[in-house]
């Protein structure tokens, strides 16, 4: 039954940025990781609860192929990463869902797998979507090597040398994941199975734990190959270089529908972030510690952005502007007069809003949160939900129409009679259910589009309501017009969750799915967004994050804005 939920007026409090400002594609597509991002909260928990890591099995040959099991012991449970590595034809290596083979395939197992479990997985995991899994498996994923970097690192280590850090920085990872499936995909455990466990309650924690363990595995794998190749001459990776290696990820359209299908969850993510920002800017004075941390992070961010280079021209222009924004911020911050006045953090935000690009503004938000862990980290526990959309059939059509006018004006202002305003459609392809993005007037299948067109459906609903003279109940309306049931249920629910909706038209001819991807990936904690087209991006996960061994509190807290290790470690 319905929960009693707060009204929107109470949700967005004074000092918070409005949904109209925040939930626009242009700003969402300018997002950065923050200390509330899910990877950050995971490493904090690992450190706080002193999780213990153990290599249980490593049956890998000289070429790096075989089976391994890496376990993590949390206070109450053990989870194991079971990985299979195989030789594949380089020409078969693709990041797309339509791929058939991968360099590495792996599961996160709930507990410690028996030999029988590993045998079963060996028959299914390498097949990925074509395999079947059981509720013992929490995550299914795969990854491909960066052939260039993996071979370079293996070769250099085998010769007793460290890798070329410039080359390493240009790639950032030894392997990149091309899909990380959780939440019941292909027979794996449902989210419900683990939703109440403290260590997996937060958003995407098992998926990111999988990636974290896999990063550890890739580093040990390349060292293993180097050692067997070079013998006594071989050396291990310098720890600082190891730390700089992340896991790559190629993210495509599959991630975008998630944001639209889970409006209340998205609201909670954004609400946590905006609440955190409002807490920080409400501080009248700073402490020496927070000022010191901000002073430390600003040059780190400057260097991090300076080392962020991509081929995409639009993103390159945005990065150049962000670099200029950061110079301005550094100059402003260097002026002692600016530090003497109250509400320093709010004045920094206002300065950014007045002078910076959207990317510069969002990076500033990340910088503002960074020194304030004690003030904001509790919000990371509020970034999930079990609330589903619910219909309120007793509501009258007049009341429903009022809701539309009040909360969906952004949709009602779009002229959906203009064909260009709904040129695009989202669908599942028959080919491995790959999510694709089509042109309604050129491609087949528009009649089978995914039900993601919130703006258009609100527009059509409003039009239908206007054509009905009687003020009937919603229940009577949906019985006669069941095609509106899903959108009414959504409208009636999300009016209480003001950050739930993307306030733009995702069917527009000019729509860039990559904006949605970046928004979600920033919440994951990704960095180094490297758009390859409007439909997909590469990113790096856990770059700069501490490795399992020797993970201290300070390392777990402070790994935002990674940059190339200093010369002396090379």
């Amino acid at each position: 039954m319905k929960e009693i939920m707060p009204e929107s007026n109470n949700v967005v409090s004074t000092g918070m940025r409005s949904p109209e400002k925040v939930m626009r594609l242009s700003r969402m597509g300018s997002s950065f990781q923050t200390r509330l991002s899910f990877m950050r909260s995971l490493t904090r928990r690992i450190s706080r609860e002193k999780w213990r890591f153990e290599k249980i099995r490593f049956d890998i040959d000289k070429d790096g192929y075989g089976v391994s099991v890496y376990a993590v012991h949390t206070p109450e449970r053990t989870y194991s990463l079971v990985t299979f590595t195989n030789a594949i034809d380089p020409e078969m290596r693709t990041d797309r869902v339509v791929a058939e083979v991968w360099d590495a395939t792996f599961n996160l197992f709930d507990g410690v797998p028996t030999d029988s479990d590993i045998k079963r997985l060996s028959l299914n995991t390498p097949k990925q979507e074509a395999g079947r899994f059981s509720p013992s498996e929490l995550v299914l994923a795969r990854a491909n090597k960066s052939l260039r970097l993996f071979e370079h690192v293996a070769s250099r280590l085998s010769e007793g040398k460290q890798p070329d850090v410039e080359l390493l920085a240009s790639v950032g990872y030894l392997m990149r994941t091309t899909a990380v499936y959780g939440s019941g995909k292909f027979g794996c455990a449902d989210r419900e199975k683990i939703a109440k466990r403290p260590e997996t309650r937060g958003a995407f924690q098992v998926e990111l734990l999988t990636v974290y363990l896999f990063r550890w595995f890739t580093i040990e794998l390349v060292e293993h190959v180097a050692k067997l190749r070079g013998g006594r001459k071989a050396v291990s990776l310098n720890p600082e270089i190891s730390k700089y290696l992340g896991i790559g990820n190629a993210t495509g359209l599959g991630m975008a529908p998630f944001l639209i299908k889970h409006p209340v969850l998205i609201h909670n993510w954004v609400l946590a972030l905006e609440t955190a920002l409002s807490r920080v800017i409400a501080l009248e004075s700073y402490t020496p510690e927070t000022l010191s941390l901000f002073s430390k992070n600003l040059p780190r961010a400057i260097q991090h952005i300076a080392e962020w280079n991509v081929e995409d021209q639009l993103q390159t222009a945005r990065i150049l502007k962000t670099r200029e924004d950061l110079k301005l911020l550094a100059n402003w911050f260097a002026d002692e007069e600016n530090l003497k006045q109250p509400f320093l953090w709010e004045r920094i935000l206002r300065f950014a809003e007045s002078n910076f690009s959207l990317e510069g503004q969002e990076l500033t938000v990340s910088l503002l949160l960074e020194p304030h862990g004690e003030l904001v980290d509790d919000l990371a526990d509020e970034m999930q939900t079990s609330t589903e959309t619910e219909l309120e059939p007793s509501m009258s059509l007049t009341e429903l129409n009022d809701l539309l006018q009040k909360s969906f004006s952004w949709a009602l202002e779009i002229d959906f009679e203009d064909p260009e305003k709904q040129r695009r459609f989202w669908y599942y392809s028959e080919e491995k259910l790959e999510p694709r993005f089509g042109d309604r007037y050129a491609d087949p299948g528009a009649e089978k589009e995914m039900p993601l067109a919130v703006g258009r459906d609100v527009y059509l609903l409003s039009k239908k309501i206007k054509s009905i003279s009687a003020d009937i109940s919603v229940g009577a309306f949906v019985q006669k017009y069941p095609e509106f049931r899903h959108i009414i249920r959504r409208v009636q629910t999300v009016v209480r969750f003001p950050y739930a909706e993307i306030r733009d038209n995702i069917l527009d001819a000019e729509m860039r799915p990559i904006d949605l991807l970046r928004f979600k990936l920033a919440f994951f904690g990704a960095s180094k967004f490297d758009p390859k087209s409007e439909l997909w991006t590469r990113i790096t996960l856990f770059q700069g994050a501490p490795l399992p061994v020797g993970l201290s509190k300070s390392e777990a807290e402070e790994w935002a804005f990674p940059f190339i290790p200093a010369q002396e470690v090379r």
Partner: protein
Amino acid sequence: MNSPEIVLSFNEVMFYFSRAAVGAGLPYGLAEEFGRSSIWIAAGGLDPAEFTSNALKSLDEAQSSLSASQTENGAETVLTCSGEKTLSSLLAGPSVCDWISAKDNDSNENQHFSAKNVDHPFMLAAAVGSFNSRSWEISWHDSRGTLYAVLTAEHGNWKTSWDSADISLMSGAADVTIRSVERSFFNADKWNGKKSYSEKNRERVLETGVQVYEAWPIIHSFFSRCLVPSTDESRKSGAGAGLVETD
């Protein structure tokens, strides 16, 4: 018993079954309700495809209709199909839930809902059960006059008046009555010893998965209607990364 055709997660039941319903002709909002009902059946440890596929087939083959009219007659609310066909349980189920939701705060316990000539009566029980409201009794007579009833309660508890899960017992259209009952009714003599389902069934299925047998191809066939055939062009440019990536 034969091996299952497939073992699904609840998430997959929602994914495949709701889209199968769209493939059979249901609007998306009703298809989502069908998905929830299917999960409720699965959480009881039953095969959701076996219990739901005939309702999809009835709709697809135009034996059942989504067109209905609802009237209030004193304490009774009546839902009747607008034409000659049987009333699709895929519309009747959500309509009952809407009625329950609207009456939620009504203290008049005598009110009840009658759905006439419903194609698959058990699907109404599944809809009410998945709604997770207070206690309801859903009952109907088969063509031989045998009474069937399902008692639903909150937190995934429910009972059936019959012991076997054999779907053939519940075939055939019937008039279905839904009435509110006291929570204590769950433990009343009338329902003592009856086949019972609880949250523990759901927890067990979470650990084992949902076993789906012979009717799975029917669900999958309807589901497949929602997929768009791949073309050379859509393969090349409809999704993200390139077709060969080595870096």
